[in-house]
């Protein structure tokens, strides 16, 4: 922080470092003013830490005096966090069997077998489809959070990821405990390995849920600049994705009794709903093309156009 006084002992340095980190949560203008006030008043490190912590807590708490953040928490953050952690666990367990099949039983001699390649291609496509769907759902969830409350993005983001973590460590294992006798009975050798039982679901959660959700949150933040009609279309697509996530997940659809109603699975409406779930791919491609063409148009005038 440049000019803060009372530097010296280790504790003071730690306090000032924490002040620096905490003040990043403030609006840039306010951060500068507060740091200036602390420098001018010659506050001790611990005092400065208390002051900045108090201000940050007040700033974070202020929106919770209104009903909107509570509604967002109850209607989006908690359900999406739990749903995604369950779907992530389901996808991880489903693909773990295939990963085990190839990674733990690999034989170089199989590469010369045409049947191997046929089965391998089918498996890769199946796993990829599941992973892509999970990444799209996660991106959509983040996108919804980013769109609905740009001002609360930090708080909602943290709560969402805490919910995911809670779901992954407590919620999903409890939920799946009911299905484990069926699921793990046949695939016992796979899930007897700690990697596939404990580590692999967390890797899937980190790569296909946390990463895409963060990306979605950032993209959602930017929709304020879009035209209202386009924003509404994006919203409809995002909301349509959520039922797709529920019905496409085997365990969830069993819980909801949808699995018994086989007639609905062949309907075009379900097919369309499943297709809509992949809308983030289309959106991101269109966004990238739009930005690329914008840059191409701008470049003859300003050769060093800053990135958007």
């Amino acid at each position, binding site marked *: 922080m440049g000019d803060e006084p009372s530097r010296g002992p280790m504790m003071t340095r730690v306090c000032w470092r924490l002040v620096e980190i905490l003040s990043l949560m403030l609006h840039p203008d306010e951060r500068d*003013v*507060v740091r*200036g006030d602390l420098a*001018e008043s010659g506050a001790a490190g611990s005092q400065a830490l208390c*002051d900045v912590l*108090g*201000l940050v807590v007040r700033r974070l708490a202020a929106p919770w005096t209104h009903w909107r953040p509570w509604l967002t928490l109850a209607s989006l953050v908690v359900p999406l966090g739990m749903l995604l952690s369950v779907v992530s666990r389901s996808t991880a367990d489903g693909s773990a069997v295939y990963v085990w099949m190839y990674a733990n039983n690999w034989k170089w001699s199989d590469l010369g077998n045409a049947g191997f390649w046929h089965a391998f291609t089918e498996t890769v496509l199946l796993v990829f489809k599941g992973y892509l769907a999970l990444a799209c759902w996660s991106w959509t969830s983040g996108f919804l959070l980013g769109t609905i409350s740009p001002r609360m993005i930090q708080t909602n983001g943290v709560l969402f990821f805490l919910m995911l973590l809670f779901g992954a460590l407590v919620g999903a294992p409890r939920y799946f405990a009911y299905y484990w006798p069926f699921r793990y009975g046949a695939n016992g050798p796979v899930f007897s390995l700690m990697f596939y039982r404990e580590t692999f679901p967390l890797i899937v959660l980190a790569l296909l849920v946390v990463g895409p959700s963060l990306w979605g949150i950032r993209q959602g933040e930017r929709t304020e600049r879009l035209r209202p009609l386009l924003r509404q279309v994006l919203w409809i697509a995002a909301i349509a994705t959520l039922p797709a996530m529920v019905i496409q997940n085997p365990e969830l659809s069993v819980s909801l009794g949808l699995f018994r109603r086989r007639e609905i699975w062949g309907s075009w409406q379900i097919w369309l709903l499943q297709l809509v779930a992949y809308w983030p791919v289309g959106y991101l491609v269109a966004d990238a093309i739009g930005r690329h063409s914008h840059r191409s148009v701008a470049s003859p005038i300003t050769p060093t156009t800053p990135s958007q």
Partner: protein
Amino acid sequence: MLGEFEYLILSAATRLGEDAYGAAIRQEIEDATRHRCSIGALYTTLDRLEAKGFIKTRMGDPTPQRGGRPKRMVRVTAMGIRAASDFYAAVTRVSRGVSWETNRVAVR
């Protein structure tokens, strides 16, 4: 009706005039009340007063004393002065005849 802390800020800012900004107001309040004034309470209350139209704030110039960082300058509006006057009048009226007020007058 103002809150007690809001009144303290308005009074301090009015007294400081052109030199009213966050750290100076805080110092004034601490000197007057002999209690610590937290930065969190100060800036959230400044926001509230600004939302009510009692003050106007702007970013001031950076000074070397502040490590080159700007001040948040405060100006009390006419509405703020009226609100503070009303508060003071109400406190004066309600305090008439109470023990600490009569004792204080007697000590004088």
